[in-house]
């Protein structure tokens, strides 16, 4: 029987949501494969995560080592090369850790690599057929990956249904003794927590969120006026923070804040998965974008094809006059 490995992210004794998503991804490659979760860390939290995962994976490989307490990708990559047999298929979530470890892992395992898989259409002999997006989601592609010598595939968080069946009845295997040499020329020091800003966008029920479509720092005023009229707070996408037009604490997305408003007004935002990853709780999403094909229209409830610089002032005026 074939084996498929999944590297599990976890925190505070709880496996990341992607742990169950990778099961669906693996089953799309081979419904009969034996699924092996690889879980690294140290101490009681690690045990809790491993025990929980035996319900979902056929085998859970636990690697307990003080050197693994913080997941330093350079160290974990070495570990995975030490313990996972050559020719294997390895799945990992495509977020910051996955981006750090996966490309190099494929080289060291001498396998193919496909990143940011959104869907998997199955396996045809040695080839795996994968769906990806390019150009910030403006075009999709089918990709084939020669997995004859194995493959590393990183999967987009939220794209695969979590497999909640919990019927694997798997076994825990302690592989700590096989860890091998874990030295790396990159040493973890600390995590610096994000600064809190002047406004807490996570507390607002209504967000007027601006993206690159705002075009100029001075135009932020237009968004602020709309927000004032609506009783909303202004948040933004990443390019606005990169340009230093707004504080990082106003950024919505995987590398910014996670918000749960009732209404989310996406103004000149294209709808990248990293941005959408910061919007939870299924708010009512209004998208205004001058490009009718912008990916944001796929997830919005209501869409308006317009120039935000014209549209926002008109909306503000109308609301103000009510």
């Amino acid at each position, binding site marked *: 029987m074939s084996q498929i490995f999944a590297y599990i992210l976890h925190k505070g004794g709880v496996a990341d949501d992607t742990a169950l998503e990778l099961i669906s991804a693996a089953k799309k490659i081979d419904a009969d494969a034996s699924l092996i979760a690889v879980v690294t860390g140290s101490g009681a939290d690690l045990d809790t995560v491993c025990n929980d995962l035996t319900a979902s994976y056929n085998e859970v490989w636990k690697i307990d080592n003080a050197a693994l307490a913080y997941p330093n990708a350079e160290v974990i990559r070495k570990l995975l090369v030490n313990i996972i047999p050559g020719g294997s298929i390895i799945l990992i979530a495509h977020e910051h850790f996955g981006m750090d470890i996966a490309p190099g892992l494929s080289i060291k395992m001498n396998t193919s690599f496909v990143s940011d898989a959104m869907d998997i259409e199955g396996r045809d002999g040695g080839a795996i057929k994968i769906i990806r997006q390019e150009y910030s989601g403006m075009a999709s592609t089918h990709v084939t990956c020669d997995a004859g010598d194995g493959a590393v595939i990183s999967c987009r968080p939220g794209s695969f249904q979590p497999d909640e069946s919990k019927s694997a009845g798997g076994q825990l295997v302690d592989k700590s003794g096989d860890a091998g040499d874990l030295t790396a020329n990159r040493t973890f020091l600390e995590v610096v927590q994000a600064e809190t800003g002047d406004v807490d966008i996570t507390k607002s029920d209504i967000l007027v969120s601006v993206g690159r479509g705002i075009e100029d720092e001075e135009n932020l005023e237009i968004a602020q006026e709309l927000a004032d009229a609506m009783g909303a707070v202004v948040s933004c996408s990443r390019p606005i923070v990169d340009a230093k037009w707004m504080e990082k*604490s106003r950024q919505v997305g995987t590398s910014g804040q996670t918000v749960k408003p009732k209404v989310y007004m996406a103004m000149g935002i294209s709808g990248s998965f990293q941005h959408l990853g910061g919007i939870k709780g299924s708010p009512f999403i209004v998208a205004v974008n001058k490009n009718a094909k912008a990916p944001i229209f796929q997830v919005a409830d209501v869409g308006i094809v317009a120039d935000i610089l014209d549209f926002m002032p008109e909306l503000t005026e109308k609301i103000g006059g009510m």
Partner: protein
Amino acid sequence: MEILVCVKRVPDTAENEIEVKGDGTDIERDDLVYSVNEWDNYAVEEAIQIRDKVGGSVTVVTVGDEESEEVLRREMAMGADNGILLSDDAFENSDGKGVAAILKAEIEKGKYDLILTGAQADDGAGQVGGMLAAMMDLPYASLVNLIDVVDDSTLKIGREIEGGNQEMSEIGLPCVLSIQTGINEPRYVGIRGIRKVASVDIPVHGVADLGLPADAVGETGAKVKRMDYFVPEMGDGAEILEGSTEEIIDKLIEHLKAKGGLK
């Protein structure tokens, strides 16, 4: 410090509406505006700032066709000292590993202390930097948003992780880092700057110069292949409000009232 920055010429997604060709073989490339990959621009700026602080040089390199030379010149106008174009028909349709192999061959001809890439390019793969590092047996870190030079052999770096938090590490030189946007504010390049470097010689290296086996790169060497482009089913998609602006706003306000979007 001798710094090499890998840059790529890509269709500018902020300037273009990317459309898939009718037969699905490619995107519509007529009239596309190309530019330097956004992330690479931050990487070059960072390299220039490090050089200006500790001395050394910045070299920009790209794997691409003749037209890719323009992005090298643009980055040289920003302040990079040298440019190298890696171009050969045999490089066409390389996968990420192929591109990394081509870059590795060039890097081994020189002596670099620090190699920078962008975090990701147009196809959003985010793979070349990590692959290159592993092939060269160099330490790697991705999504770097802070670099401090500690001494000749060590950098202190910050990586952007979830929620705006930052993971701090020390990494040994030489190393490969992929740069995240926002690490700095890339300087503006004016027409005059571009003119100044217009006639600077940019060497072009191909398969033979790099001593690469032709079947390791390009279409033949690729284990990962793009089969087609397509436009995904829209699913439910948004209800697109139509009519005059006035009508649209009236409809929108109805929706907002119903959903608690107006206070």
